[in-house]
Every structure is written in structure tokens, then in C-alpha cells.
């Protein structure tokens, strides 16, 4: 299957050729002859989504800093391109060189969400690689996975040679250097290399861990095959965010991507500790960057990209200790250069009115707020430490500032939820509307409050995720979810409130995959037989097909999604240590059932365990 037709001819026949043409300013081209390891960095979704991911941008640059390594980008071709590629015998290729992915040394996949697993298999197949790691030969590329889903990669364990656990900036370079070294000194065989890789800090080689099961399908044991590899793999972190590598240029997409702007990561981790949230646990401990470092990085990126927008991203931006100085430093030059500054997730009362108004996301966007639950009782249980008063305050600021749109996010089906909590969602939305009219009356005659209020309520379904306090909890059965959705719908009678809920079926499949074990690899293999891909896209997701795959593989989705896992069961991801201890998560789980909250890291350290990983500019240190 050698590529015999120039791409130009193929690209004329697809809908968005700019996704595949490459040739962007800032893409890195190297001379193959000088390179000792070629890495194909695959994002299992479209170009527009993949190009927007800051993590990928960082890893692409950090690998290419190395003179012996050439890292290239690969995205999942849309179905029209797939058709053309298959028609003309073009295998999956890398954007920069156009060379087939299967000729690379290392094929890396970033696993950002479970629903992209089908695309991993789709891309492996398009590349002409065997799907099962055990069937790939010594001269095939090493297939490695990383990203948040690697914390429980068991459902895709059979397809990968190895996973990188935790933050990859340093780890991936070390891994590739090991590969180069073993290739050069002649000691390389796939199995010898994987055994060595398993000794590196933060690498999990699934084939080197044996999993046994009990009669009732729970796990009996997870045992490493060798004495010299760790029984528990501790995740990698970047200790000092100020000194960690950050690119001073980006590859500049021609076509519009999802986040087509400068993105800066202000800190890693989250102080909050919401009990359903995986990101809040796996990125601990919280490590902040200094405002000076951030300002300098923003300036450099502005000079090298010409972007007109800077977005500060973090899980909850208002929690950053130096937010005020950072914004002042940035605004000192962004305004004059017509660069807008956006801070998604900024709380309405973060700064003075004058400073708030200089922030474009505040100026142009509506108010978004995520109470996650309808009553204080349930918000306490999930440890979402916001109150109705907080919401009303934020709404007051927004409405008085001339806004009329409010978006509220909730989650349905959380542990301990009752119909009273659900009714609370509708009541909260009504109160926001009432607040608007109350303020309107107060401001009578001053010309503001012209537009009617618009409150949109978006409700997703709870998904128990590994490494959260709720990892043991069951997801509601589908008919219960539907019942709750109908109930909510019946309560949403206010004409200023719009109600929207997520597809419960997608959430169910996500729950199966999130807490799955190795036996799910068989089901995923079936998804490829059925030609499934792009399952994170509504137009492609097909629940019945998923059920068919589970059935063919002989696995019961309810066992993974809808079962309360026992406190002392061995969990499929127990060989991974994310810093936060199981004891801590279990105590959080108990507290949830007693409606007891836990203070956040800036108030008090709750001894989650993540401090053992070290780190600079952490809350853990300040709390000591």
C-alpha cells in the first residue's frame, strides 16, 4: 500500500482539505537522516480539536527541541477522507512529512476522553498496524498512550505497548532517549525495551502485569511479572512549573480551530476537591506559575504568533493566588496591541469593576455558573462549595453590568440525590429569573434591563470516574435517568428558562469505559469490526452498536456502570498511584454520605497524599 497518488489529487475530493494539507507556519520539518527517533503524535479526533489542545502543543515542541527526535502530528481523518484514503491505498500519514505512520519509531496517542477510544483503533487500522499489541512485530512502532484516560487505560490495554502516567514533558523525552539508546547499542528488542521502560518513573507496561479475576468477575490480583518493576506506578509531575518547558512558538493553523488563540496554563491542579471530579484529583498537587513567567510567555507567544487573543486556562482561574498582578501585567501591553484577554471560569467578584471590564470574556460573554446540584444539602455532599448566595451575587453583578444571559450547569444522578434535589435545580433557575426582575424594578427608569432574561440550564449525567471520591458509586440505570430527566422537564415551567440535558446513553457508555477493566478490550475490538469511530460526535454515536459490541465480547455493561463497587475490592486501576491516596478518597466518600464538606487546599490541608510528590509553589507547602 505505497502512497502512489499525490495528495493534491485526493484533497480536491474532500470537504475540508485544510485539515489534511499541513504546511502551516511554525510546523517543524527536520532532515530524516539526522534523526534517531521519529514520533507520530496522534490526536484521536479532528484536526480542529487536536490543534487546540495545549498539552499536545507543549509535547510537540518539547520533543522537537531534541536534535535526535522528530515529532510530527497526526489527526483522525473524517469519513470522506477515510473513503478517499481507502480507495487509493493511502495509509494514515503524518502531517509534516506525509510519511506513513507505520514507518515511525514511536506512535503516541493522547487519550483525552473515553469516547475517543474507537478512534484510536480506527487510526491504528488506517495506519496498517495490527490492533493488538501482542500481534505487532519487533520492527513495528512502539504504541504509547498518555493523557487523563491513561489513569485507567485498562479497557484499551491490549492495544498499547505502554502508557505514560502523569505529566509528559519530561517523561516522554526520557522514554524516547531510552529507545534511541537501546537501538544504538544493539540491545533493542521490543520486549527488552518495554521491560526497561517499565523501570522508568511513571510508565505502565500492561503486558508486564498479570490480572486475575474472582468468580464474581471482580479482580482477585494484579501482579507484576518481574521483581524489578514497580507493583504500583507513581504518576509523573513537573515539580517547578516556572522552570518547566513551555513553547515560545505554536504551529499556526490556517483553518479555524476550536481554540485558535494563545492559551496559557496558569497553574496545574485544583484546590477545590469536588467529589465527582477526576481532574481535581489527578492533577494534584496544585502548582502555580509566577505572574512574571506567565507574562513573559504570553509576550513571546504574541510576538511569534500574531494572535489577537490570550486565554488563561486553569480549572478554576479565580483560585490563582496572583491573579490580580498577572492581569495587570498582561493588560499593560495587551490593550495597546489590540489583544483581548479572556479568563474563562472567572468569578464575578474577582476584582474591581474597572479591571473586570478590561477582560474581554467578561465584557462579551454571558455569565456561566456551575452549581452542579440543586440544593445546598447535595452541594455539600458532592463538596461543591458554592452557595445560593454566591450564585445570586454573581447574577446581581452580571445583570447590573448589563447582561441578561445566564448559563447554569448541573449534574443529574449524583450519589445521595433525591427528587427534592432535582426540584431544587428548577427552583434555583427560577430564583435567578426572579432576581433579574427584582433588580429591574430597582433600576426602574434608568434605561438598563431592556432585554428579557435568558437562563439556560444544562444537565449532564453523573459518571463515576477513577481516582475520585465517587469512584465506587453506581451510575443510575438508564430508565431511572430518563425518569429524572422527565421529572426535571416537568418542573421547568418558567418561560425564561431553557432546559437541555445530555444524552444519557453516551454517559452510560462513558461510565463503562471509565471504570472498565482489560476484558473490555475485546468489546473495543468489536467496535472496529463494526467500523465505529468518532463516538464523541452525536452524528456517529450509536448506542445499539455499543450494546452489540459488549454482548459479542461477553461483557455486561451494568457490571461496570451501574454497580456499587465494594470498598475493599481491588480496582482495575489499583496499579496506578496518582498521589492522592485511596484512604483519602474513601474518607471523602464516607463524608459525602454524611453531607460533610471538606475545606479546600487554600483553607486547610486535608492530607490527600499528593504532597508526597513534591513540587514548587504548592498549597501543600504553604499549609505546613
Amino acid at each position, binding site marked *: 500500500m505505497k502512497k502512489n497518488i499525490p495528495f*493534491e489529487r485526493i484533497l480536491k475530493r474532500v470537504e475540508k482539505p485544510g485539515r*489534511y494539507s*499541513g504546511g502551516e*507556519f511554525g510546523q517543524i520539518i527536520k532532515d530524516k537522516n539526522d534523526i534517531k527517533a521519529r514520533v507520530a503524535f496522534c490526536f484521536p479526533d479532528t484536526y480542529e480539536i487536536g490543534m487546540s489542545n495545549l498539552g499536545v502543543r507543549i509535547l510537540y515542541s518539547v520533543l522537537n527541541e531534541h536534535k535526535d527526535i522528530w515529532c510530527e502530528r497526526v489527526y483522525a481523518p473524517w469519513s470522506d477522507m477515510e473513503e478517499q484514503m481507502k480507495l*487509493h491505498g493511502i495509509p494514515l500519514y503524518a502531517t509534516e512529512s506525509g510519511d506513513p505512520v507505520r514507518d515511525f519509531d514511536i506512535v503516541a496517542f493522547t487519550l483525552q476522553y473515553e469516547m475517543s477510544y474507537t478512534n484510536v483503533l480506527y487510526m491504528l487500522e488506517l495506519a496498517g498496524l495490527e490492533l493488538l499489541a501482542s500481534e505487532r512485530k519487533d520492527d513495528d512502532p512502539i504504541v504509547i498512550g498518555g493523557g487523563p484516560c491513561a489513569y485507567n487505560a485498562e479497557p484499551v490495554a491490549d492495544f498499547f505497548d505502554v502508557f505514560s502516567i502523569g505529566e509528559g514533558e519530561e517523561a516522554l523525552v526520557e522514554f524516547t532517549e531510552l529507545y534511541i539508546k537501546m537501538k544504538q547499542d544493539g540491545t533493542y528488542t521490543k520486549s527488552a525495551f518495554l521491560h526497561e521502560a517499565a523501570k522508568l518513573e511513571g510508565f505502565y507496561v500492561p503486558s508486564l502485569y498479570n490480572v486475575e479475576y474472582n468468580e464474581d468477575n471482580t479482580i482477585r490480583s494484579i501482579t507484576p511479572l518481574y521483581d524489578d518493576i514497580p507493583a504500583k506506578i507513581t504518576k509523573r509531575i513537573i515539580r517547578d512549573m516556572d522552570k518547566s518547558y513551555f513553547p515560545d512558538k505554536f504551529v499556526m493553523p*490556517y*483553518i479555524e480551530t476550536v481554540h485558535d488563540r494563545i492559551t496559557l496554563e496558569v497553574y496545574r491542579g485544583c484546590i477545590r476537591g469536588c467529589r465527582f471530579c477526576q481532574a481535581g484529583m489527578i492533577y494534584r498537587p496544585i502548582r502555580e506559575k509566577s505572574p512574571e513567567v506567565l507574562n513573559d510567555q504570553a509576550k513571546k507567544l504574541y510576538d511569534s504568533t*500574531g494572535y489577537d487573543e490570550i486565554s488563561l486556562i486553569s480549572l478554576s482561574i479565580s483560585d490563582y493566588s496572583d491573579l490580580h498582578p498577572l492581569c495587570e501585567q498582561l493588560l499593560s501591553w495587551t490593550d495597546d496591541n*489590540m489583544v483581548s484577554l479572556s479568563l474563562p471560569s472567572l468569578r464575578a467578584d474577582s476584582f474591581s469593576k474597572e479591571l473586570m471590564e478590561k477582560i474581554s470574556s467578561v465584557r462579551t460573554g454571558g455569565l456561566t455558573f456551575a452549581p452542579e446540584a440543586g440544593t445546598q444539602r447535595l452541594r455539600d455532599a458532592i463538596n461543591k462549595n458554592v452557595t445560593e448566595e454566591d450564585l445570586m451575587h454573581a447574577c446581581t453583578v452580571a445583570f447590573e453590568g448589563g447582561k441578561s444571559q445566564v448559563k447554569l450547569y448541573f449534574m443529574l444522578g449524583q450519589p445521595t440525590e433525591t427528587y427534592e434535589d432535582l426540584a431544587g435545580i428548577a427552583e434555583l433557575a427560577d430564583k435567578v429569573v426572579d432576581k433579574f426582575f427584582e433588580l429591574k424594578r430597582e433600576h426602574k427608569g434608568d434605561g438598563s434591563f431592556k432585554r428579557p432574561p435568558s437562563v439556560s440550564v444544562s444537565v449532564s449525567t453523573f459518571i463515576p470516574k477513577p481516582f475520585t471520591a465517587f469512584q465506587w458509586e453506581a451510575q443510575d440505570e438508564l430508565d431511572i435517568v430518563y425518569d429524572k430527566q422527565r421529572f426535571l422537564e416537568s418542573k421547568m415551567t418558567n418561560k425564561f428558562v431553557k432546559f437541555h440535558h445530555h444524552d444519557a446513553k453516551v454517559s452510560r457508555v462513558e461510565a463503562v469505559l471509565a471504570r472498565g477493566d482489560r476484558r473490555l478490550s475485546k468489546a473495543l475490538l468489536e467496535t472496529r469490526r463494526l467500523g465505529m469511530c468518532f463516538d464523541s460526535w452525536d452524528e456517529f454515536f450509536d448506542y445499539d452498536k455499543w450494546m452489540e459490541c459488549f454482548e459479542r465480547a461477553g461483557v455486561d455493561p451494568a457490571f461496570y456502570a451501574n454497580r456499587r463497587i465494594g470498598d475493599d475490592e481491588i480496582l482495575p486501576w489499583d496499579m496506578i498511584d496518582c498521589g492522592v491516596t485511596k484512604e483519602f478518597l474513601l474518607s471523602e466518600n464516607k463524608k459525602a454520605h454524611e453531607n460533610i464538606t471538606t475545606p479546600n487546599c487554600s483553607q486547610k490541608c486535608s492530607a490527600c497524599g499528593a504532597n508526597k510528590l513534591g513540587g514548587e509553589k504548592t498549597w501543600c507547602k504553604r499549609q505546613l
Partner: protein
Amino acid sequence: MVQATAVRLGFTKTGKLQFISHLDLARTMSRVVVRAGIPIWYTEGFNPRPKLVFSLPLSIGTESVCEFVDFKIVEDMTCEEIAKRIGAEFAPEMQVNGVWYPEHKIAEIGWAQYEIKINTSKASKELASGITELLSNPLIITKKSKSGEKEVDINPLIKSQEVNFIDGAIVINATLSCDSADYLNPEYVVKAVADKFGIDFEKVDSEYYSILRYGVKLADGVTDFR
């Protein structure tokens, strides 16, 4: 307020970049001028952006060695300096042809010259003369636009054409109307030829074509647009 000086940038867009749409090019160009540090004039209003005026649209799938964009600068900078700075910020498949003070208005553009190369197993001297014949006579095609389909005779929109059989391929050099009211996309010429002579571009192994815009002329059809 400072005096703003209008300048025109001539550039190429070839190879992979034929797949970048006009809108995407416009966005790219505004980033190019910003990172090149050109003291460019911004649009007024709520969301100021570098003010750029492109002279002619270029369809996806057409390469060009003569594209133009106009903008104003608000501080002194020589044309050579602007050209050098912008050149450094282009990806390899864009090249600067030059920067100069505009000599003509965009509205004066009348024609563009294209080289259309058709590879087909049917290529022959006879086919070449057949195409000459086709393009020299009234030629009704169906033009699609937002307002629907309409029949037009494109013959008056073709100022001149020369069809040759070179190295096994048909090469058409054509000067087509660029008048804003009567813009003739070269794709229509390709389609008319393919329909008439039964060339099936679905057979991508042997049947394919490329289009290159290589000249832009004023209404007289002789003077280069500068």
C-alpha cells in the same frame, strides 16, 4: 492623527496552500502582519483588526503566483522592509513578490490569466484542437450561485485562449474575466471541457487537473495590475 500610507503586497500561494480558503487566508494574513511588526492600520470599532483588502478571490484548489492584498501603514517603513519582514513570517508555500505603492485601483482589474493543465488518457493533438473549437464558440454553462442556477454563455468571458498538447497532457492558457460582475471561475472551463469530451475525473489515477493563476490584467487585457 498620523497620515496613513496605502501599500500593496504581491504574493504567491501554491502547493498545499491551494487548499486554504479565502477566509482562512484573510485570518492568516492578519496574524502575519502582526507578528511581522508592520505598523498597520486597524479597523475601527469594538473588535479592531488589521484592515486588509484582498483584490481577487481565489477558489480552493487553484494555485496562484499573483495574489494581492492592500493595507495601510501608520508609521514610516520602507516597502523593502515590509517585504522582508512579511517574507520571514510566511510558510514556505507563500512567497513575497514585492511591496509597492498601488498604481491601480482594484476596480480596474479586468482579466486574469490561468494555466489549466489537464491530464487525461484522452489527451491528443486532436483533443487540443477540439477544446480550442469549444472555447472559441458560444458556450452555455450552468452557473451556480447563492440565488440559484442560471445559464450563461461564457464565451464573452474568455478573452483569449491557447490550447496545446504537451508531454501527454492538455495545457490551456486562458485569459478569463475578473470583472466583479462577470467573474469566471476557471473550474467552469474545466467542467465544460470534461463534460464535452467525457473526461471522468473520478478516475483519479489518470484523469486529473491543476489550475494556476499567473497574471492579473486591467480591463485592456494588456497592462499588468500593479
